[in-house]
């Protein structure tokens, strides 16, 4: 039981708990903050898996940009705990039950998979390094890369369409 293991368990627990807190906390701002915690935890996992690049990107893009955007919107609408409307109890319960049972069936389905042998190698391996990723990205994956630019473009145009005053 080395340090990696401890870290793994710690991060996993952190992620799960804060994820749950995201869902249950009344105040939206708190949810955002908890979500950031989740992201951080996941980035930690990336690092454990020796995928530094993704870890960084995850922090920058998600925990940074996106979450700030969320916060920004919240501020804009100054939503907080009391503005959060109460969903009726039954639907809430139903939701939890459904989520839970989805978890159950998924686990049940996957439990049968004998992946015990399969190991995810920890803090070794080079594929996660920017160098290798970059090469692959711009050699094999150049087409999707370009395509994604189209995606962004469309998003941009879209936002313009919606945001523009008439």
């Amino acid at each position, binding site marked *: 039981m080395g340090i990696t293991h401890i870290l793994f368990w710690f991060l996993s627990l952190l992620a799960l708990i804060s994820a749950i807190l995201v869902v249950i906390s009344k105040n939206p701002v708190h949810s955002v903050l908890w979500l950031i915690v989740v992201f951080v935890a996941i980035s930690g996992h990336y690092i454990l898996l020796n995928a530094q690049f993704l870890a960084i990107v995850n922090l920058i893009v998600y925990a940074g940009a996106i979450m700030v955007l969320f916060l920004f919107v919240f501020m804009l609408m100054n939503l907080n705990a009391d503005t959060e409307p109460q969903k009726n109890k039954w639907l809430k319960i139903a939701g939890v039950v459904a989520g839970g049972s*989805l978890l159950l069936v998924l686990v049940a389905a996957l439990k049968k998979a004998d992946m015990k042998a399969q190991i995810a190698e920890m803090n070794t391996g080079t594929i996660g390094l920017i160098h290798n990723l970059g090469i692959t990205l711009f050699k094999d994956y150049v087409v999707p890369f370009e395509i994604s630019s189209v995606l962004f473009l469309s998003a941009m145009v879209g936002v313009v369409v919606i945001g523009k005053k008439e």
Partner: protein
Amino acid sequence: MSNMTQLVWLIPVLPLAGFLLNGLFRNYLSKSLTGIIGCGVLLAAFILSLLIFGEVRQPGFTPVIVTLFDFISVGKLHIPFAFQIDQLSVLFLLIITGVGFLIHLYSTSYMHDEEAPHFARYFAYLNLFVFSMLLLVLGGNFVILFIGWEGVGLCSYLLIGYWFQNLEFGNAAKKAFIMNRIGDLGFLIAIFFMINTFGSVTFGDVFSHAHGKSIGVLTAITLLLFVGATGKSAQIPLYTWLPDAMAGPTPVSALIHAATMVTAGIYMIARSNVLYTLTPVTQTVVAVIGVATALFAATIALKQNDIKKVLAYSTVSQLGYMFLGLGVGAYTGAVFHVMTHAFFKALLFLGAGSVIHAMGGEQDMRKMGGLSKKMAVTHATFLIGCIAIAGIPPFSGFFSKDEILAAAYAKNPVYYVVGVFTALLTAFYMFRLYATTFRGTFRGTHDQEHHLHESPSAITIPLIVLALLAAGAGFLGIPEVIAPNAHWLEHFLAPVFAGSVSTVGETGAIGVAGNGVVAAAPEMSAGTEWMLMGISVALALAGSLYAWARFSRKPDLEDATGFGKVLANKWYVDEFYDAMIVKPLDLLGKLFVWIDRNVIDWIVNGIGRLVQYGSRQIRLLQSGQVGGYVLLMVVGMIVLFLVELFVKK
């Protein structure tokens, strides 16, 4: 001159032509012209028949089949449109065309009050009737026979309902047609049986192959045929239409419902005598039904006051006699009685018609009386008719009836007893009729009395002719005991019934002995026969004289009471049928209408409604709530996984 028989097709075609002429140009023809056409074709047909008769009566004449064209031929089954000429058919030819002609003649005067188009319509119908009747007797196979069979039914329908503005008459016509149809169904099924058994419906094939076929099938066939006969010839249980049929013009009653059509049944059975001789069961049935009908109708006739109704029931009763004859195997006797009956019953009807004509349409005897002074000819002829039907020698009725009774006695004395008793009743009600009408004092209104007159010659001539025939026809069939070998008709018809002769030995049925002499049974001594004759004559005389004496003095004018009431109401048979058959069917129909609307159609529409209801319910899922949608999605997903986990294997 054997080419004569080849012209036989002309005989039916002539009336057909008359029908077409009178029918199509009814609006343009004058009455006299119509009458000429109507009677002319009949006369021509009669002459042709005479010529053919002349040919047929040559010794050693063999039946001639004239095939006109192929009517229906499917697979192995061939039904030619063929005519068959032999002694039997020729005999009927003569009766039909001869009596038919006289009645046409009679009609020209009787129907003279109708305006031209309807007058033409009347003669068109009459001609059409003769046409189909001729088809019936000439037909060379059962299908052609059936065509004529239904054709005459149609014509009787049209003629009964001739005065179609009167709903009563219309209903009578309908009743006649439908009751006939019931019989026809039996006939039809019998034909199918033949097709199945013999693969043919031609008389020749059927009769020649009848031997050795299973008795069961033959019995079925004969019984079904007999069902047809009961319809057409008004036997129990299908007789009730005939009295109602008196709604038609009187000449029609005379021709169709006395002389010709109603005897079709007898003709048909006589024609297929071979089959019947082979099936004793059927014979018994025929005999019993016949004698029962005879008695039953006679009793009803006792209490009728409508002059035509009395005659109608007497017709039914006489037909019963004929079937009795057929049932006991006295085919000749039956045919003989058909002939004589044709004469005297036509005579009686025409006479009644003449009376009604004179009385200005009055048919109730109670309003008549004492007509003998005013209408001499009618009276005389009518009297002859009465004597003839009562069976008093030497008039025709005696010979024919006696032949049947003799045969009946030989077969089974019970038949004889009932038959003789019926004869007594016959004599009684006929003379009741005669006396009430012609004797005593006039009981009608004054202007009726004032208008009373003898009918014109167009009416009286046929009366006279028929009277002569009614008086003399008997001598065509003098019983053996009276004059040996004098039974001309017997010899004449021998070939037709030869088929049955051969079976005498096997079945022991009374048929014709080898030498063609009437066999009132070998074991029956001449003495017995004289005795029988004596009894019947005595009873007949007694009945008639009593009735004459009683009703000349005081006819029963008041409504019948007690048992008489039952008779007057015809044993309530119509009411019985109405309650037992008509009403239930009507209810059933109403029930089906209800089912159709409220069950079957309801289910059909119900499916539609179900879909709409389902739609209304299922659309509630579309709650508009994203949460709900996602929830349902997830649930769906879970279901899929559950299937994957547990169901799918």
